[in-house]
């Protein structure tokens, strides 16, 4: 059994409950629904990995959770997002700002999207502490240095006086993590936080996030396209395809018994260095392209690319059903395929 990496508070109500979320974007060419019928939850202190390729809807889901959908094009068109009891989809702008400041921290792929290039990094963290935690100038500055130390930045006192451009990509991402965690959030949303980093720096940042989670106990919604990162970070996994959840299970169960053909194909398409005989073997590609969100597709969204598709798959949309022990799968043929 996989040991949960976060400090779970068993029995307590889930931190996040998303029900039937639907996100709509209105464009010149009409409206599209990049996320539809999405339901999932996050326990306190756990890490849920949301994995998928471009266009799967994973980043849009993160933006919806944070109330940061680009306006006026994007909006939550249906469903609810409950965070610690509050419905975020119905919160006022001011309440959302407060929540983003103290309840939810965010880390994106590109650290410079979160950093102000003309402000010293210590000041940026301190500013957040003054605004959201009500600290005075001196205490905020001292706490900012503590946060830099906490994310293992060497010589934090000196680094606090640096501007973002003076730091490497890995160090900038540490600063963003320090800022995201400064007010002690219950949830950290990390959207591809290591994708832009070199692999040795990625390993350092993943290790840092695991250690910080053990110390602070926040839940992490970890969005990534990399199944290696998923295996390393997640307690549970939600696989997304074309705006819908297609499989959900604990990390051990998902990798041991992937049921959805898409998940299996994705696992087989990764070049792996941990197995012998990879050299010059053929990779199992998935044919075709991710479907165009502007074109409504009847049946299962994956059927045009699925090696196991039957006639039925092209006409009737599959339900997201429990295949046992909370392992959810959106495939009409999972029983036959599991046999």
């Amino acid at each position, binding site marked *: 059994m996989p040991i949960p990496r976060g400090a779970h508070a068993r029995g307590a109500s889930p931190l996040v409950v998303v029900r039937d979320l639907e996100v709509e974007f209105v464009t010149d060419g009409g409206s599209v629904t990049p996320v539809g019928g999405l339901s999932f939850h996050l326990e306190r202190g756990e890490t849920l990995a949301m994995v998928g390729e471009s266009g799967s809807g994973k980043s849009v889901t993160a933006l919806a959770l944070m109330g940061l959908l680009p306006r006026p094009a994007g909006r939550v068109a249906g469903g609810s997002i409950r965070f610690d009891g509050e419905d975020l989809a119905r919160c006022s702008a001011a309440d959302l700002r407060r929540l983003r400041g103290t309840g939810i921290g965010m880390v994106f792929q590109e650290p410079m999207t979160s950093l102000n290039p003309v402000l010293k990094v210590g000041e940026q963290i301190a500013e957040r502490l003054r605004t959201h935690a009500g600290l005075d100038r001196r205490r905020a500055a001292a706490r900012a240095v503590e946060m830099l130390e906490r994310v293992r930045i060497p010589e934090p006192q000196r680094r606090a006086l640096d501007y973002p451009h003076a730091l490497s990509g890995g160090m900038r991402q540490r600063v963003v993590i320090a800022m995201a965690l400064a007010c002690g959030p219950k949830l950290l949303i990390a959207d591809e936080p290591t994708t832009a980093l070199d692999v*040795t720096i990625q390993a350092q940042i993943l290790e840092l996030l695991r250690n910080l989670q053990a110390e602070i106990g926040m839940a992490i919604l970890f969005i990534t396209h990399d199944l290696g990162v998923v295996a*390393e970070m997640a307690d549970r996994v939600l696989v997304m395809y074309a705006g819908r959840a297609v499989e959900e299970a604990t990390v051990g169960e998902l990798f041991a018994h992937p049921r959805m053909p898409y998940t299996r194909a994705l696992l087989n398409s990764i070049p792996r260095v941990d197995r012998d005989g990879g050299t010059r073997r053929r*990779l199992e590609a998935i044919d075709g392209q991710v479907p165009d969100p502007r074109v409504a597709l009847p049946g299962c969204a994956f059927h045009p690319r699925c090696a196991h598709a039957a006639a039925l798959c092209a006409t009737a949309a599959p339900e997201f059903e429990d295949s046992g022990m909370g392992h959810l799968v959106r495939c009409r043929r999972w029983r036959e395929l599991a046999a």
Partner: protein
Amino acid sequence: MSEMLLDVRNLRTHFKTVKAVEDVSFAIRTGEVVGLVGESGSGKTTVGRSILRLVEPTSGSVHFDGIDITQLSAAAMRSRRKDMQIIFQDPYASLNPRMTIGAIIGQALDIHRLALGNERDARVVELLQRVGLSADHRRRYPHEFSGGQRQRIGIARALAVGPRFIVADEPVSALDVSIQAQVINLLKDLQAELGLTVLFIAHDLGVVEYISDRVIVMYLGRIMEMAPADSLYRNPRHPYTQALLAAIPVPDPTVRRPPLRLHGELPSPINPPSGCVFRTRCPVATGECAERVPPLEEVSPQHFRACINS
């Protein structure tokens, strides 16, 4: 054993004070695929561009088919490029958005005066089909294609002039993993069918393993290790290669990656460390490592590494 098609000796490429590539030597046999891996700042892209003289090497030689191309005039080099092509990472940035796909591929044929009229059109169609696209696609524009399709177009353009050697510079790193596998398989098939010689540059060691006969690992402008792919992945002999392989997340939650032994970050290529450039992050470095640049030594057949301590 076939002959050497490309022989790079003591290549050095500096951009003002930045020592991007420092004393790099290697050779590629005809029909061989060599993977060149390293993290940002390793100099791998600059090596690829220096070989094609898309950037001018500061010193050293690059023999292609026996001729030192660093000595060629600009005009002579232009006609040489018919034999030496490049595929870029970002297919979108490398395709003119105002030209149809047919015009983009046809332009490569025109520059080298390879085909005219009906023959030119037929060749464009043949190239599109060869990379898994269809004849109709030649009337469309780059924005109408997905990332994977654009990379196929980039490959068709590179193949149009019938090159013998291709530098593939991170050709799949911008693509989704399912599409990445399609493009890697396509490149492998084309390489085998056409007998191409390829320098495959990538930061992803997994991808490189699937396509390469031999692999070169670079760090801060220098070669750390060079070996047949099997040998390098199964038995890495340089502490940097070992750290790089150990840092890759494994898609298996029952595997616990050993704690990272590599700390800190890449030093500046403006003022690289003395001696071994890797020593400031190396878990086994000693005082001696600061004193001289370790030579690339053969530790088993065809397996070279630059380290005095491992």
